[in-house]
């Protein structure tokens, strides 16, 4: 049986988080929440005589993305009109870039499940404007809200280097992570500010000829992207094995049925009659501008992961978890800069802080614990004021009250008992009160040792210094004469 391989390219559309729109001063609003048509003006409504003007910040955001995706920034940029008739575009054209996009020839390395790294080429990154939003009514007709019309939009087109749904997901997640690091996009797929559309075809393995492709839409999560792509690959292979032909079309992903369906058959290549946008003079980007934007780029996830491993000795897993989100990475780095062992800080964040954040459904930017607070807590453990278990309780209370560790330890009397005489007396008292267990232990029932530790911890409400308790128990249980020596 012929083996097939999939050839997949991804188109990603990402809105840029500017304050105002791409070509006019209307506010960029949440297009799901904002009342309809409250952020529109003659420019984004396509009124006759309107004149668009480029938002400089949008260009800079786009440059950040192009540079972070290792693209070459083109000096000479021309905007183009993409002509088509659909009511989401009141002008009957979309201002976009065509022959001269902002960024070309980029790449991005993704990590596969196997642990290998794969480089995905990026063909182009260009600037355009988003369209309005249509709501189709059940009894015919549609409502149009133009709040989203003219919102700065970036289109990121990969080379057809992707071979599976999993790779598609890994690539899209990494692009999203970088956009979030750059502070240019929230990555919210459900609200549609980050949209992924794969172009999928299959061909006999090893063949150089591309098969007929389909484009997949309605993917509003990474899971849908991976599943929908895998479904479409399997569907196309089944069609070919049946002796059929794949039809060039746009297919939608049905979230409930988890399958793809025909949305629109493309009988001929669309004819958008692109031509240079006469209303917008060329945009010339010189080297000085490019280098300034490059210098302002934050350290990106891959660089952070490498540094955390080399400089701080973190495991790859820990480094990845901490570098996943820029806000978390910066929180961690602040804690390290205040001064404590990076590995200890990493453990506290990954094991304990994340659990509390999950329980309370708070992000790192919302929590009341500061990096400084965590370092203080760690110091209380390292100077043996409190033990590790107590520290976990204290962290939970810090999380809910926002109080510093020291305050909680003092007000609740949680300081660890490290005074040898106090503990020795206490242990002796326990041994006196439980003569049968002492005899059983001395006759070889070693597992009772843990029970004795438990009794000491119970008597001290968990505050006994565990290392000291162990040392003293060893002494007192193994040397009968000490028993009465109080």
């Amino acid at each position, binding site marked *: 049986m012929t083996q097939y391989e999939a050839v997949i390219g991804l188109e990603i559309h990402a809105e840029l988080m500017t304050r105002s729109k791409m070509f006019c*001063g209307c506010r960029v609003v949440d297009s799901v929440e904002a009342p309809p048509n409250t952020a529109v*003006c003659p420019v984004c409504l396509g009124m006759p005589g309107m004149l668009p003007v480029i938002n*400089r910040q949008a260009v800079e955001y786009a440059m950040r993305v192009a540079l972070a995706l290792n693209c070459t920034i083109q000096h000479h940029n021309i905007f183009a009109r993409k002509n088509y008739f659909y009511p989401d575009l009141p002008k009957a054209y979309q201002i976009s870039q065509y022959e001269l996009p902002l960024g070309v020839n980029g790449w991005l390395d993704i990590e596969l499940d196997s642990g290998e790294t794969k480089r995905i080429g990026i063909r182009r990154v260009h600037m355009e404007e988003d369209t309005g939003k249509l709501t189709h009514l059940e009894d015919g007709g549609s*409502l149009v809200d133009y709040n989203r019309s003219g919102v700065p939009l970036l289109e990121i087109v990969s080379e057809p280097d992707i071979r599976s749904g999993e790779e598609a997901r890994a690539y899209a997640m990494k692009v999203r992570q970088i956009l979030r690091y750059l502070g240019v996009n929230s990555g919210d797929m459900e609200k549609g500010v980050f949209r992924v559309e794969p172009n999928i075809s299959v061909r006999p393995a090893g063949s150089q000829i591309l098969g007929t492709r389909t484009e997949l839409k309605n993917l509003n999560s990474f899971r849908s992207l991976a599943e929908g792509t895998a479904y479409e690959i399997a569907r196309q292979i089944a069609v070919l094995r049946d002796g059929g032909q794949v039809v060039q079309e746009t297919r939608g992903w049905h979230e409930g049925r988890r399958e793809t369906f025909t949305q629109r058959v493309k009988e001929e290549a669309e*004819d958008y009659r692109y031509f240079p946008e006469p209303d*917008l003079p060329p945009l*010339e980007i010189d080297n000085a501008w490019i280098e300034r934007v490059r210098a302002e780029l934050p350290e990106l996830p891959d660089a952070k992961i490498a540094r955390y491993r080399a400089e701080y000795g973190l495991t790859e897993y820990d480094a990845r978890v901490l570098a996943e989100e820029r806000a978390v990475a910066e929180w961690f780095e602040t804690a390290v800069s205040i001064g404590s062992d990076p590995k200890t800080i990493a453990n506290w964040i990954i094991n304990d802080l994340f659990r509390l954040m999950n329980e309370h459904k708070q992000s790192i930017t919302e929590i009341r614990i500061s990096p400084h607070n965590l370092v203080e807590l760690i110091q209380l453990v390292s100077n043996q004021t409190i033990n590790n278990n107590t520290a976990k309780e204290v962290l939970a209370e810090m999380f809910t009250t926002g109080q510093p560790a020291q305050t909680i330890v003092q007000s609740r009397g949680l300081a660890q008992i490290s005074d040898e005489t106090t503990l020795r007396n206490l242990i002796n008292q326990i041994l006196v009160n439980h003569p049968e267990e002492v005899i059983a232990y001395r006759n070889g029932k070693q597992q009772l040792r843990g029970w004795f530790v438990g009794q000491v911890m119970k008597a001290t409400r968990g505050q006994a210094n565990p290392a000291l308790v162990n040392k003293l128990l060893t002494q007192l249980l193994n040397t009968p004469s000490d028993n009465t020596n109080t």
Partner: protein
Amino acid sequence: MNLTLEDVTKIAHLARLALTEAELIQYQQQLSAVLDYAAMLNELDLDNIPPTTHAISRHNVMREDRVEPSLPLEDVLFNAPQQADNQFLIQSVLEE
């Protein structure tokens, strides 16, 4: 340069113009004449001349990312033939 009737029919369709047979022939002749006129440029040696996209030499006309007032809703919908729920109400769009 002679446009075929097919070319003109396609252009008319892309522009959503419903033309009669007589009009198609008329536009075929007129559009061909326009293209012939522009083709005079081919007599020049243009090999090393980059395509002109704009007739004036300005570039980098940009605005700062500042929010300006938008239109009041009644002005936004003033010209709408139909409206509902503060939105433009349009006829069903039939995809081709």
